[in-house]
């Protein structure tokens, strides 16, 4: 919900405090009723998350029903393939997130400043974000083949040296996928930042402009700091995406193999393969616990960053 929407429909703000407190106390009396309303949803959540997480931790410490302590974790961590996978997630995070933030900032500012036709541009730039990843991955898979459309264009332009085997060359495949992921995820950032820009008052911009600030100066000194919170949110969402939501891209573009070789192996695919192809569920469980811990760590970092400003709300 937008902040201003909420303020408009929340007369509660205007209600004197004692009244509000009396109402809450009155409601508390019927203590079993809310449970009744929530029971079905809570049951599903407990099954999907509660049961699975408990079972996951249990099976990560067991092998065929025997307690083995941290043996599975040792086996997982010493597996070179797992380390490669983790490293690839890290590489995605370190490369894609800064690029996404910079591009999203640039495009949202340009859309904000260029009023004419921005709705059309916005709609188109956002389009990739809603497309199914399997569709995107198959289309790019075709475009990026050795004799695919991109290389046809490059060769026609006389850039034969650049016409490499984008997905077939182990040195390039992960970079190529990084590019596809950026193409897909950028729209979300543009929408987020643009929405914030449109909700801000024009004063700081006008003042800086009157002071004669140029484009780069204005946006580096004024706009970027004003967008700090929303950029932090975008960084966290994308960081989590790069660590634990890239399965679809990799699975489809490498035909489920993480190849060529292990050049596009990521943690999710490692868990999937060890569980369902190599039938080592205890190793998959240990890897899943590690991935879960990594996502949790990212969230904690986010809340640390966010606490100072938003402490009094929610």
């Amino acid at each position, binding site marked *: 919900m937008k902040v201003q929407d909420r303020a408009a429909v929340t007369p*509660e703000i205007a209600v004197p405090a004692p009244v509000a407190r009396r109402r809450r106390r009155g409601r508390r009396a019927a203590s079993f009723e809310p449970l009744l309303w929530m029971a079905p949803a809570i049951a599903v959540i407990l099954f999907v998350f509660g049961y699975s997480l408990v079972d996951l931790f249990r099976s990560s410490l067991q092998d065929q029903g025997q307690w083995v302590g941290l043996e599975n974790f040792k086996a997982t961590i010493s597996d070179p393939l797992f380390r490669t996978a983790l490293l690839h997630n890290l590489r995605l995070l370190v490369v894609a997130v800064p690029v996404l933030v910079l591009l999203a900032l640039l495009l949202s500012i340009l859309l904000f400043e260029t009023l004419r036709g921005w709705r059309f541009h916005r709609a188109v730039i956002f389009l990739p974000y809603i497309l199914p990843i399997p569709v995107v991955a198959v289309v790019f898979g075709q475009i990026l083949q050795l004799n695919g459309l991109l290389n046809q264009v490059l060769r026609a332009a006389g850039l034969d040296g650049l016409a490499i085997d984008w997905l077939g060359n182990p040195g390039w495949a992960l970079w190529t996928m990084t590019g596809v992921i950026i193409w897909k995820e950028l729209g979300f950032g543009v929408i987020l930042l643009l929405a914030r820009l449109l909700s801000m008052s024009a004063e700081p911009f006008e003042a800086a402009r009157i002071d004669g600030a140029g484009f780069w100066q204005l946006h580096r000194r004024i706009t970027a700091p004003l967008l700090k919170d929303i950029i932090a949110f975008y960084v966290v969402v994308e960081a989590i995406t790069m660590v634990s939501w890239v399965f679809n891209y990799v699975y489809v573009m490498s035909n489920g193999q993480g190849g060529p070789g292990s050049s596009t192996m990521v943690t999710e695919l490692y868990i999937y393969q060890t569980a369902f192809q190599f039938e080592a569920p205890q190793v998959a*469980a240990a890897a899943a616990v590690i991935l879960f811990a990594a996502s949790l760590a990212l969230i904690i970092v986010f809340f640390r960053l966010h606490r100072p400003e938003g402490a009094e709300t929610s």
Partner: protein
Amino acid sequence: MRSLTERAPKHAVLILATLVALAPIYIMVTAAFKTQQDFLAQPFAPLVHPTLAGFRTALSAQFPRWLLNSTFVTVSAVLLTLVLAATAAWGFAHWNWPGRDTVLAALVSLMVVPPVVLLVPLFVFGVKLGWISTFRLLILLYVGLMLPFSIYMLTNFFRTIPSSLIEAATIDGASSWTVFRRVVLPLSIAPLVTLAVVNLLYVWNELLLALVFLQDDAKKTLMVGITGFQSRYSLDIPVIMAGLTLATLPIVVLYIFGQRFFVRGLLAGAIKGE
């Protein structure tokens, strides 16, 4: 006031970004209407000799089956999520019970659990029940995964409903069920539509769980199906592109008609707590 030389580079960057965003989609849609020969000869031309042959071949395979499966799974999972989330959110918003905010915070933290983490335990459980390749298990999983965000968003909205409206109805002797149905739900159409749109997008596009839990060929969803399409028709690109276009069409139609709901739903996650 501002000169053309200042504006031109800005427009150039925006036009370039628009072209880059559109190019793969353009290739997909135009290729779907070409023959293999036309595609190889003029891959970038808009339409050479438009043909529906690609679509016909795509639809002659198991495609309609997958489309039906996807539609069934998506519609049931989203409807179930809306019902469960709305009732649960009312339990969170209407009563103030001890520990409420803690439970809500725990719920929010579930949003970041990667589904792949839950895969192995749920699969073992599914095998025990004999529920692999059944829609009910997959639907249940989708509902579970969508509930935390859905409950959170609706709770936030329900809290903004003027308490005077609810009190007026309560004084008239209405039960909490009647208040929920007659007062709260009619006021919540917009957030419910937003939620439906965001969740539809998620379920329709989901691959990993569908891949693992629907192993039977006749039970596949569209996303699993088109992933295998690629190798089966690797020599006939227009057929692949026609299949992909059909798989994308419902989402794009939804986007065109519900753009503001999309945007609102995505922002709801970001602008929480302000």
